[in-house]
């Protein structure tokens, strides 16, 4: 751990606990931010980073704990109140209005007025001053939408500085920037830091964390893992701390020895050759054999979801060729994937999976029904059979086909989704984070089910943020980093989390 800082923290949060119904999102978390430092907040999805930021900026109320800003106990009523106290936030999606000019976006709500009317000349001049403070030499009169995302991100930071921010929160500001743009953003961040601004930085890109951070706080599952300096925390250790290397509870599934040998002599069920899509994933090659579980390992934002979407046809690829059972196919839309017996379960259960207001029965039958078209309704008898079969097999609770799917717990919704896809008798099952945010028992059941399905000859693509899980299930592992597929390895007892973590951290060069 780091030695005690010499300066007084500008933000000091202690004992922060926030519960949502049934879940503790943050459990006794402490966090501090010093003036003139860049402090990285790290953790996988669901670790509690966003919750912590929202607790600080007043979006969420805290159940217990203290927030001290500039030596004063504070409970903010919302982002506006936090702004007044000098805490500005720049979000991942640029929260500006692209129908207005750059100057307006910087100055909205703070325009310079004369006789009650906006003095545009003075306002633009002020905007230019703020922009130039960040070395941003663009015409304030130009439309925001005419600039790249990187510039828009910098404009958002300029806006944050208008309110005299002492604390600047950057929530994944680099997720859509290329390396030159990131370099430019970092110059700005360093300038601000040198002016004494405290910067809270969230990013999933390890390189960037090491390039810019003065200190790193790691969260996992809503708890504090620790606060470190980059020097004392090598990349491998950081990834290890984020992912959590010890998973005691699931030991009963430690099934490495029983992992079947996959026959890779025949034609793969699916071959992707140079398939890619600009701005989401660089061209990659991937073969998937029947009966094989291919795990995708990589941090959030590494392109694992994007890759999976291309395999299904949820997005369509702009390069490369896809072959299914040796035949070239064009997967333009989800129906095309479905027609080839490929199914995809999205990581966003709520927005891209479950049809909330429909019943469990209707949700399960939906995939089958979509395949048949609207006229040939799945016969009631068959629907009942299928639904009963999967509710039973997957252990959906409540075991009531007429329950409204939106009211089920996350794990049960996931099972309903699995049932929807399994009912279509797929040959390739793509699962994006099927075990995220669900309890341990349900997790184990789903893992077991996936292993069984593969043993019966189904090809599976399995994505999970939990490396242990990927390693336990997969026959082969594709490693992704920064939207590239960087390595592919056959799983064996020699492949440990350390090996994969190394690959992720190094980008495939040291393996």
């Amino acid at each position: 751990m780091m030695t005690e800082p010499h300066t007084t923290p500008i933000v000091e949060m202690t004992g922060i606990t926030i519960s949502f119904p049934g879940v503790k999102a943050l459990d006794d978390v402490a966090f501090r931010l010093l003036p003139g430092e860049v402090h990285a907040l790290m953790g996988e999805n669901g670790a509690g980073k966003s919750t912590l930021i929202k607790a600080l900026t007043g979006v969420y109320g805290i159940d217990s704990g203290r927030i001290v800003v500039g030596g004063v106990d504070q409970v903010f009523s919302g982002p506006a109140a936090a702004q007044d106290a000098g805490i500005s936030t720049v979000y991942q999606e640029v929260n500006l209005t692209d129908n207005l000019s750059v100057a307006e976006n910087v100055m909205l709500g703070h325009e310079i007025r004369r006789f009650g009317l906006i003095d545009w000349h003075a306002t633009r001049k002020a905007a230019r001053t703020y922009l130039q403070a960040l070395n941003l030499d663009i015409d304030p009169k130009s439309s925001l939408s005419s600039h790249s995302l990187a510039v828009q991100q910098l404009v958002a930071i300029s806006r944050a500085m208008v309110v005299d921010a002492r604390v600047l929160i950057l929530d994944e500001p680099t997720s859509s920037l290329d390396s030159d743009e990131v370099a430019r953003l970092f110059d700005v961040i360093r300038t601000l830091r040198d002016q004494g601004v405290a910067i809270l930085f969230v990013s999933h890109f390890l390189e960037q964390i090491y390039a810019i951070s003065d200190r790193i706080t790691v969260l996992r599952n809503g708890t504090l893992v620790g606060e470190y300096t980059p020097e004392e925390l090598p990349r491998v250790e950081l990834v290890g701390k984020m992912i959590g290397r010890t998973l005691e509870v699931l030991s009963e599934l430690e099934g490495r020895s029983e992992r079947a040998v996959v026959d890779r002599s025949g034609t793969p069920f699916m071959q992707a050759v140079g398939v890619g899509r600009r701005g989401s994933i660089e061209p990659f090659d991937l073969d998937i054999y029947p009966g094989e579980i291919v795990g995708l390992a990589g941090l959030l934002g590494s392109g694992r979801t994007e890759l999976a979407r291309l395999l299904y046809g949820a997005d369509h690829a702009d390069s490369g060729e896809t072959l299914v059972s040796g035949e070239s196919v064009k997967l333009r839309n989800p129906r095309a994937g479905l027609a080839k017996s490929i199914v995809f379960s999205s990581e966003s259960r709520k927005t891209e999976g479950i049809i909330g207001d429909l019943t469990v029965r209707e949700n399960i039958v939906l995939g089958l029904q979509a395949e048949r078209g609207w006229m040939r309704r799945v016969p009631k008898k068959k629907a009942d059979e299928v639904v009963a079969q999967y509710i039973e097999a997957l252990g959906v609770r409540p075991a009531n086909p007429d329950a409204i799917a939106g009211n089920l717990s996350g794990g049960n919704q996931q099972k309903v989704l699995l049932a929807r896809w399994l009912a279509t008798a797929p040959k390739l099952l793509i699962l994006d984070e099927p075990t995220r945010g669900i309890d341990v028992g349900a997790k184990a059941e789903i893992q077991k089910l996936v292993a069984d399905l593969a043993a019966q000859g189904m090809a599976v693509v399995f994505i999970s943020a939990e490396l242990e899980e990927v390693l336990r299930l997969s026959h082969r592992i594709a490693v992704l980093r920064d939207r590239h597929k960087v390595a592919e390895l056959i799983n064996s007892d020699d492949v440990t989390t350390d090996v994969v973590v190394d690959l992720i951290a190094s980008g495939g060069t040291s393996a």
Partner: protein
Amino acid sequence: MTGLAQLTRHRLFWPIVALVVLLLASTLKSHGFLEVTVRDGHLYGAPIDIMRRSSILLLVALGMTLVIATRGIDLSVGAVMAIAGAVTLTQIASSPDPGAVSTVAVAMLTGLAVCLVIGVFNGFLVAVLGIQPIIATLVIMTAGRGIAMLITGGQITTVTSAPYKTLASGFWLGLPVAALIAGFFFVVVALVTRRTALGVLIESVGINPTASRLAGVRARTIIWTVYVLCALFACIAGFLQSSNIMAADSNNAGLFIELDAILAVVIGGTSLAGGKFSLTGTLVGVLVITTLTLSITVIGIPVNAVSLFKALVVIVVCLLQSPVVQHKLRARRRQAAPVPVEVPA
């Protein structure tokens, strides 16, 4: 106690209460209100009148329900009615034998074909070009009556054709033909949406378009289809309306019926945000609106005040449906059992 609570929670409880109250009030004022008599082998009386008058609105509201279930709206139905009347009556009027069944049939088929084209056009704007439904259908709403007048040459085309007159004024098995037609289509749509998978797919698209698309549902085709259906039902409503007055009045045919239809759908418990729809609810909504109009005259309130009552009904129903009020109600109901919520990332 719980049984009553459950009953009041049913989404059709309040609309049906409104309907019963209206009927009771009318009966108190005019004792013979609910009486049905047989005259010339036909049934007569206020209930039959309500059925007959409801038929046009029911047909329009039927299509509107499907459109609204997909998160859409169709403002063009009134104009489509005008066009349907104009096309059909112009053709009947210009035929040498306006009284022949074949003439009427051909004319009506022509009307249906024209309305089909309009439905395809609306659906194209919404489903393919992705234009907001309100604006997309505003185009025909604005231009439609002009087109209808273009067809009739600006005249109110009148015809004398016994078969066509039967549509609105005839009786069959003692019941008004118009009501039978509307009832027939109501049953057909109910059967088709609930016996095939169309209903659940429409709801699925309305509730969550993204998830539906990822589940392989042909969202675009479904949205396109409901606009075509809506135009076709408006067309049939146009037949009934023009048959009622035996004239194609392009200016007034179906004027503002889109608003009444939307209102009927909303009263019937189908949310404008799309998703779950209830055809029975729409039927109740239509009956409430028709009865409201009729009762008000019986009770002795000036006809013109109808819209004031409609305003109150819309406001009350919408406030009860509004997310804020719903949330409060639900929060009260579920104090004991918290719903599992996923951890926000």
